[in-house]
């Protein structure tokens, strides 16, 4: 919260001050009215002059107009500050999230990041606007009211002020209890986001298994939990308003009693007590709007803490760039090299152990291995989504840590397993914001064997895809993704199981295109089908994160039992069929 106040609001301090001054002026005008009224009762009326009464009446109207103008201008300025601050906070938060390291993303979880970016920044926005609008006015009314009553009768004012400490105590204790509740509430809302995302993603399965009732129940539980926390927080906060009212009114009663004594002993006048009452109502109203803001502030404090937690997280821009040229000479001719690399996600059990290989520019590496053997992890390390626990990964002879992350990734064209398509045109999905010409995109679509269906009678390059590419079949999606990877003619092409939904014919034509048009591209293909990788220059066989075979197809058929088995199962069919 502090950070928001100091860092994000700082550029607007001046504007806020100006708004404050304008609001102050307007509020003073508001406060003048009862003072004029008191003056009329005590001074003007006894003079018995209608003219004077009208004159003072006109003055009141002028004050009212000034109050209106001041308040409207100040309110608008406040909204502007709230808008700009929120925009800035959101921008920073989103930037941070885009650069967030995978480790941090895993730790926060995506649903939580989404809700921090939306509902938490919204809470902050609401608070900033409200507090400036009401928060300036209320304390001014409060302090101004007290100051004016001081000039009327200091003793009575002190009596009234004596109840304020009680109010402060109530407010601080409630907020101390309330803020953690709102933090918990936001966490519960993350669960909400998670479940809705999850169920939308799995709607087909849920319906197929007739599990809608079960999902309703799951949702019901979270819903109940959220409502419970909301209720508890609401009930805690609800104490503030009535107790504030109570204390202030008690103060008023004390004032009347004390006033009675003072009037009796000739120290005060009835008119003053009357005016006092009017100011008291103003003070009371001010306190009421403070208590209303109170909930919003507590909520915003909880949200601001959640936002700051993300802003402080580790981010890829913080990755250190290592100085290293030592190995450049000897490794110059190899494009990608792994040198005794080991890695573990949870730092307990190794997911990859002692991986070493080296491929030259233009060569192809095939990776094959059981489900869960660590194939995709190699890709993650290569793109530096995670850093290897041990060993070195070299690209063009340089350790990847010595390249800025962006520089590093510019070498790559990647298709992940389960890769993302966006709700945008086919062309834009291939381009993905890069500086590519129309021709490059069409070429890539052609190479990726997607031309036929893109140019289908019902479709075109500028047709919009549905969310996650839902209006494409599995194989069509994969081909658009491959086109995306090919479009920029990358130095290194990575296809992580990205032809699994392609039929064999399309797969074979794709490989042919790659051979013909991407000769200088170093390719890493991860696949289940031996036919997809058997022509690769090197094949890496993985089992449980360890290399159990490395060589060409022919070599491995001789030396690697696991590869033999895979080969037999897939090629065996070949002999049978022919």
């Amino acid at each position, binding site marked *: 919260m502090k950070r928001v106040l100091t860092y994000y609001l700082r550029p607007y301090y001046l504007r806020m001050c100006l708004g404050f001054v304008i609001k102050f002026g307007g509020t003073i005008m508001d406060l003048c*009215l009862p003072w004029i*009224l008191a003056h009329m009762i005590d001074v*003007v009326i006894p003079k018995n002059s209608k003219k004077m009464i009208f004159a003072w009446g006109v003055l009141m109207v002028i004050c*009212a107009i000034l109050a209106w103008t001041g308040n409207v201008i100040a*309110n608008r300025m406040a*909204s502007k500050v709230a808008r700009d601050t929120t925009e800035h906070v959101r921008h920073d938060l*989103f930037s941070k999230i885009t*650069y967030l390291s995978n480790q941090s993303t895993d730790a926060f979880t*995506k649903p939580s990041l*989404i809700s921090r970016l939306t509902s938490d920044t*919204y809470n902050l926005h609401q608070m900033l606007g409200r507090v400036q609008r009401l928060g300036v006015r209320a304390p001014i009314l409060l302090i101004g009211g007290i100051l004016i009553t001081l000039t009327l009768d200091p003793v009575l004012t002190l009596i009234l002020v004596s109840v304020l400490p009680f109010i402060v105590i109530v407010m601080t204790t409630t907020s101390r209890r309330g803020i953690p509740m709102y933090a918990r509430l936001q966490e519960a809302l993350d669960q*909400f986001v*998670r479940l809705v*995302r*999850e169920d939308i*993603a799995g709607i087909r*399965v849920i*319906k*197929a298994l*007739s599990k809608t009732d079960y999902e*309703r129940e799951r949702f019901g539980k979270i819903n109940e939990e959220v409502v419970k926390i909301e209720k508890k927080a*609401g*009930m805690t906060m609800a104490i503030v308003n009535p107790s504030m*009212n109570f204390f202030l*009114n008690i103060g*008023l009663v004390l004032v*009347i009693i004390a*006033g009675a004594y003072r*009037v*009796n002993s*000739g120290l005060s006048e*009835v008119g003053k007590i009357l005016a006092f009452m*009017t100011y008291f*109502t103003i003070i009371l109203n001010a306190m009421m709007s403070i208590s209303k803001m109170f909930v919003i502030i507590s909520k915003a404090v909880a949200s601001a803490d959640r936002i700051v937690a993300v802003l402080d997280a580790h981010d890829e821009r913080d990755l250190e760039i290592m100085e290293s040229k030592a190995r450049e000479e000897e490794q110059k001719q190899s494009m990608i090299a792994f040198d005794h690399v080991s890695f573990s996600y949870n730092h307990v059990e190794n997911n990859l152990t002692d991986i070493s290989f080296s491929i030259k520019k233009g060569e192809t590496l095939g990776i*094959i291995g*059981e*489900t*869960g053997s660590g194939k995709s992890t190699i890709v*993650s390390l290569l793109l530096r989504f995670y850093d290897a626990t041990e060993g070195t990964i070299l690209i063009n002879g340089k350790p990847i840590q010595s390249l800025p992350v962006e520089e590093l*990734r*510019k070498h790559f064209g*990647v298709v992940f*397993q*389960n890769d*993302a398509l966006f709700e945008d045109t086919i062309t834009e999905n291939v381009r*993905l914001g890069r500086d590519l010409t129309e021709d490059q995109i069409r070429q890539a679509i052609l190479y990726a064997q997607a031309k036929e*269906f893109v140019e289908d009678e*019902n479709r075109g390059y500028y047709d919009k895809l*549905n969310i996650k590419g839902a209006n494409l079949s599995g*194989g069509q999606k994969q081909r658009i993704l491959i086109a995306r990877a090919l479009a920029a003619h990358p130095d290194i092409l990575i296809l992580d199981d990205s032809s*699994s*939904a*392609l*039929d064999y014919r399309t*797969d074979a034509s794709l490989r042919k295109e790659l051979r013909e048009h991407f000769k200088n591209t170093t390719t890493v293909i991860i696949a*289940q089908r031996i*036919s997809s990788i058997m022509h690769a220059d090197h094949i890496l066989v993985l089992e449980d994160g360890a290399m159990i075979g490395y060589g060409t197809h022919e070599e491995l058929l001789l030396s690697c039992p696991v590869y033999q088995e*895979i080969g037999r199962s*897939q090629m065996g069919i070949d002999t049978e*069929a022919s």
Partner: protein
Amino acid sequence: MANVAQNLVGNSKQKTYEKPKNRKGTMIRLGKYMMRYIWLLLLALALTIGSNMFSLIGPTLSGYAIDAIEPGAGLVEFDRVFYYAGLMVIFYVISSILSYALSILMIHISRKVVFRMRKDVFDKLLSLPVGYFDTHQTGDIISRISYDIDTINASLSNDLVQILATIITVIGAFSMMVVISPKLVLVFVFTVPLSICMTKLITSRTRPLFRLRSRKLGELNGFVEEMISGQKTLKAYHQEENTIAKFDIKNEEAVESYYRAEYFGSVTGPTVNFINNLSLSLISVFGALLYLAGSMTIGDISSFVLYSRKFSGPINEFANIISEFQSALAAAERVFLLLDELPEPLDARDAKELTHVEGNVRIENVSFGYVEGNPIIKNLNLNADKGKLVAIVGPTGAGKTTLINLLMRFYDVGDGHIYVDNEEISQVTRRSLRKSYAMVLQDTWLFEGSIFDNIAYGRAGATMEEVVAAAKAAKIHSFIKRLPKGYDTILSDDGTNISKGQKQLMTIARAMLLESPMLILDEATSNVDTRTEIQIQQAMRRLMEHKTCFVIAHRLSTIQNADIILVVNHGEIVEQGTHEELMKQKGFYHQLYRAQFE
């Protein structure tokens, strides 16, 4: 298999962006949610009246006390002062207690309403046709179920009390003022209509702005959800800066629309305040004149002013509430729009429950297209008897998944009929139809929960032994065993420790637990390595035993022993027969088959 449901969702999408004008309708529907708790609401009203009555009496009492002080030095009637002061304390205590009770009650009611509303929205989501989610961003839906409902809720819990209180206070204060000085009340004949007019004017200006604000926030959420979901891809293609630039546009739109709404909305407060000040000025002038004319005492003027403050305070509050209330209405409109989406058509009224399904599936002259004029399936005929294995092969995009969509009734056929055991599937309940299939899809779906729960998902009350047996058959048991927490390991949607192939094996294990007479495998093992696939083949065969199976596969090896192989291309069956027959034909299938080994 492409072009999902534009005919269905296309319409509804239009509807979403059509600006709803029916404010009264929205209010009535919101009212209906509240009316469920009519008794609690009446209680709240009673409390409001009580609490306000007590605090209204306050100024009168203080007026009496001041009258007792008025005689001046040495003449103050202390008995009366103390008497009234004592009464004031009592009244204020009661008033505070009542107002706290009221808050609690209102929180209680509003939570109930919100709970109900969220539940309704979620239930609705589950009843929508699957295609809805292909054209509606998850983030926007989340925005409706969280932000929009929260906005409604904030308004209901705070504002409703406030509005009730305002009405009561205003009526109360007004009648008190009439008692004190009917003439002076005439001031309000001028100012009250003025405030009503101003408020109306401002709200009619701001209404569309609040609507825009809700929508823009929804769009922002939609964008954020989509981008965060694709974070890895964006990073790999170093699109961070471009994405941030796109986000900035959405962000700017969202905050700007918020600002616009507030720019006009925040005028209401000062305006109403202005009118109040105006009436105070008028009261002062006329009060003074009346005093001069001898028809009012100073004490009267004092009480009158206090009441007029009482009168204006809540009206002021009310003005602030109005903008909140407007954003609540705008939010409610979005929620109701979602609730008004057409669900999957109801089951036929006399729909039967499919029980004891044998598993004879017959497809007769079926044609279907998601978009009119673009048929994906043309005049399809097929007989799959009990226990038969039907394989569907063909190039991608040929309509294979669409056929599954029709069998499961995610979509209804355009022309023709599908029968299960001689029952037309449109004449049976969807639930019982879907229950008679087990399905493993290419897109694995696991939810955040333990591995045990995920595998047992399709069969409530499955025991650990059954789950372990299924996992063993799917060759995923040893992997699970190696995890530190075994079957209690919590899976998260982006879990990095579990590969896609492993997820697929878990969904296969899930299907193994089902006892359905029919089975659909849509590329069920596409991400599983062939070695594992062979290892689980035996289990798969057992899974398929005595079941009518529909299998979509690219690896033709998996379907060689199918009873019928359908070769689809461009929505039509081009060849049909067993593996041997089709190989002999040397047609399309033969080509596909040969391509595997090229």
